[in-house]
């Protein structure tokens, strides 16, 4: 969540959202969240997802993948 927030600080096109999975279970289920953190990255047409705390460059790669 911290990295997502930092990415949003740096670029006006980035929307960082943390979602508490227990409270919003329907949404979590719709994204097949079985473990946390689970990260869904959505661009206009493409999307990516990954699990676990990943280093900065992996997180970044997943953002660049969807644009």
């Amino acid at each position, binding site marked *: 969540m911290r990295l997502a927030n930092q990415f949003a600080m740096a670029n006006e096109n980035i929307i960082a959202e943390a979602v508490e999975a227990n409270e919003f279970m329907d949404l979590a289920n719709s994204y097949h969240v079985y473990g946390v953190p689970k990260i869904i990255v959505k661009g206009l047409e493409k999307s990516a997802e990954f699990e676990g705390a990943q280093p900065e460059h992996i997180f970044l790669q997943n953002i*660049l993948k969807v644009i």
Partner: protein
Amino acid sequence: MAIISGEDLDYLKQRFAAELKSGVELNLFTRASYHTPEAEAQATEANQEDDDTGEMFAGEASRVTAQILEELAAIAPDKITVVTHDMDSPDGVQMAEQAGLNAEMLPAIAFDSENLKGQSRYYGLPSGYEFGSLIENVVDLSSGNSELRPATVEKLATVNQPVQIMVFVTPT
């Protein structure tokens, strides 16, 4: 009773005094109807009848979140501001729409800071591990120091269309 107390409070006082620079606005989206004495009494009763579900209802989550944010703001009143938006009112709904928030997901916190170019939000009650994340966000937003590597910032600059990052988290 205070949620933030003892060592945590001392730690936050020191950290905020040392690291907070510019103002951070915490926009809390909730419903006024969650915060009435009646709603609170009802929740207490429901908890006593059935306290093993582990479910955190939106009303209870909103009340605790509101308290956490108010207590944070009280530690650094010149830096942290809490603005509460009532989703029972047309104004609150309009604010949520403007902020691009999902009105069905309450409580929600939308962060605002001069150091935030994009958008940053938190859906749910920031407790446990996520309380720590909330603090890191506030400190990063206020200090303007994102600690990202220069190469990352450079590549991020190429993001020229909206990208939504959803991070699913739990308190433990």
